[in-house]
């Protein structure tokens, strides 16, 4: 299995607390066990290698997709429940217990993150980290320090292999 936990070198520090690294096994368990998961993807998922895997993960557990940035165009006719939302607004709404969510059934307990610019997602997650209880699991290529749990920094090849492991384990 890919060791997704070893490289946690920071590109800058946000302070005293950084996310715990997570193996593919634990990441898939957390995703599977989430009561109200939301798959928050950035425009980076338009890379075909990633897009295919996002669709597989979403379908495996019927997870709704928050298609942030301009990623929505990748999900047209893919048979997944994807909706566009601005990432910064989403970060705010996740801190509001009264947000009805995309389906009207309320806020989410777990967000899964993929395809983001690391500086942008880290900044947005500094809101959820400090002002909400939402659990943020990053399965991105870079270590996302403001997530609750994150893969470490991975090579492209290892990242794809790790995502495939997550898909197999779901």
């Amino acid at each position: 299995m890919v060791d997704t936990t070893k490289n946690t070198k920071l590109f800058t520090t946000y302070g005293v607390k950084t996310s715990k690294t997570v193996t593919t096994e634990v990441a898939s368990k957390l995703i599977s066990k989430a009561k109200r998961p939301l798959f928050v993807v950035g425009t980076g998922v338009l890379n075909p290698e990633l897009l295919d895997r996002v669709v597989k993960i979403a379908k495996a557990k019927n997870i709704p997709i928050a298609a942030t940035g301009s990623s929505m165009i990748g999900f047209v006719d893919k048979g997944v429940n994807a909706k566009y939302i601005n990432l910064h607004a989403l970060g705010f709404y996740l801190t509001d217990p009264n947000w009805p969510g995309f389906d009207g059934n309320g806020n989410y307990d777990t967000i899964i993150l993929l395809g983001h610019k690391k500086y942008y997602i880290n900044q947005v997650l500094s809101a959820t980290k400090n002002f909400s209880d939402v659990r943020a699991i990053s399965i991105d290529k870079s270590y996302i320090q403001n997530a609750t749990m994150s893969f470490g920094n991975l090579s492209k090849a290892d990242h794809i292999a790790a995502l495939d492991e997550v898909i197999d384990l779901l």
Partner: protein
Amino acid sequence: MSKLTTGSFSIEDLESVQITINNIVGAAKEAVKPTKEAAEVTGPMGPTPFPSIATLRDWSFTLFDRYEPVYTPMCDQCCYCTFGPCNLEGNKRGACGLDMKGQAAREFFLRCLTGCACHSAHGRHLLNHLIDLFGEDMPINMGASNVIAPNIQLVTGLQPKTLGDLKPVMEYVEEEVGQLLATVHAGQEAAAIDYDNKAMLAGVLDHVGMEVSDIAQVTALGFPKSDPEAPLVETGMGTIDASKPVIIAIGHNVAGVTYIMDYMEGNGLTDKMEIGGLCCTAFDMTRYKREDRKAPYAKIVGTISKELKIVRSGIPDVIVLDEQCVRADLVEEGQKLKIPIIASNEKIMYGLPDRTNDDVDAIVEDLVSGKIPGCVMLDLEKLGELVPKVALKMAPIREAEGLSAIPTDEEMKALVSKCAECGECALACPEELEIPAAIAVAKGGDYSALEELHDYCVGCRRCEQVCNKEIPVLSLIEKAAQKAIAEEKGLVRAGRGQVSDPEIRAEGLNLVMGTTPGVIAIIGCSNFPAGTKDVYNIAEEFLNRNYIVAVSGCSAMDIGMYKDADGKTLYERFPGRFERGNIFNTGSCVSNAHISATCHKVAAIFASRNLSGNLAEIADYSLNRIGAVGLAWGAYSQKAAAIGTGCNMYGIPAVLGPHSGKYRRALIAKTYDDSKWKLYDSRNGSEMAIPPSPEFLITTAETWQEACVMLAKNCIRVSDNNMGRSIKLTHWMELSEKYLGVLPEDLYKFVRNEADLPLAKREMLLKMLESEHGWEIDWKKKKIISGPSIKFDVSAQPTNLKRLCKEA
């Protein structure tokens, strides 16, 4: 005593005695007190002239009620006082009692205040300098307008007529900046929302300070005056003729450079040497004495992202600095290539020797011999002589030595082969560029991947700071991109200054009714997430759609760098008026005041609202009726935070690029909370439901494609007539389909009746509204019978301010 005014008077019985009164303390504030006498002179005065921290708090809080502060702290810790450092994670309180939100709000506020101080101090410097040169009585001349200082009039109530009239405006701004800065001290403020109110005031003061700066220089330095046909200026690194001696000016304050240009003109040097600039000094150099539309000889090299690149190229023979947006490593970088650095403003002195009082030729000798790497020169007359002389002497010396940091072909091969591909540079790169992969390709002799990085690279040099092999990564990129850099030749229209009153009269109705779909103001710096072409793409998209595109500063430069298939820039393809389908460049950073002022002018001139000391009412008008949205796509500076926040207080929303989450505070509305989307109808004070737009006052987007969709949506205003709404919905839908692949989910929230729906898609949309939202449709008449939650009333007078309602 209150009847005394500035000027001179004689006392009849005392012969040969004359008393001159230069300044009456408090006279300006006294003059705007809403008395009957004052109203006869200056027109009616609004309720808030010369606002201090508490004065406009109600208006800030009205905005915050819908547009809630969203904090994204940059750090879990507060390291501000010696009680700390304190861990505030999870919104804990620190030793002083301040919680995480309060700390994030304070940090954001401090950025806005810093930006405001920069522009205002720049304004003060220019104003004092120009009054020294031309006198206090020099009449302000901004072109064909009666409303010549909209921000100043709106905020202070003053209507300046001369340069001297700008002094009390600066005094007011400086007093408030001091009061605001005091609140940053530990133990001064507790509530995050009150820091947010202070940030809003700092933003407003920023626009006042910017307006003073640009009014002073437009008036006194012969800049274009509300001129839609201001001349085109060459822009780009490739425009500089390196075979001539080259002067490069960097910064924002053009005062010193005007002396250099005067010296060049006086000594017949303008065609014998090059003068180019980076950042906003560059823009103002090209406006200097160009009200006659003569093509400028000064050139624009580019933005702060190009500062190290132009230095490393070895092209400059001397660099002159003034203030703001100047890299802190220029002396070190310049010294390596024997490029003398002349600091001409007290704000940046770089540790260099102050040679202000020395003989110019002696300084030239010391600089040319390398005895000193640079110097401070605060006497602008001497500066004007010193800089060209240094360039003329250094050019042959530097040419003979072939000074450049760009590696030779052999050096390049050796440097790329040194790379261990450890990945440290990629981790440090703020743009997340795949530097190791590009170098790996370069090892095989193919530099195309490195060349591609050039446009995405912001020239920060963080890659070099972490490289274990001490590879000058930036220079490798520049070497690989030599051909592309040589071809970087664009055109930008010189800053025109304000939008004139006649233009407002002609366009106001279209804008408020929505038949001109909106104003997209593309401003700010160059910290773009995906290269400089983003801003060009956005500008072109909206120009093709007949929006008005306003631009300024570094974004205006980068927009001019790209051409269509016929080799034309957007400035050549689209005219420069305040009119649909036009692109107008107001000028440098301080010229951003003219963009916000355009909204004030629409309210004052088109809608006949009183401008003086009446901020909340005018801002309320803009928020509800003027479809204007700002875009600071590469905002990096504190000044950009101040400009955007000032716009917010004025009721103008802004979209920023993804880096700008690092400012720490956004203002975003809950589109799902219907209680937030109501206004009063001022005809009778009744409540009216409104569509959720603008849905933010300041927020970020990840990509330029997403930004396009957001900009179009957030131009929708409650006041749109049917045709206007239908035009705006058309653009929003088309952009959403183009860039997101889908129609907007919440389109139905913006439909009041069938006439709002674009004709070409009306039937399809009616079907969608019926099937997805249960709306009742009369299919024979193709009319909506029931469904919309908002009503169309052409006579409604929407306002957030209860006091403006008739019953109040």
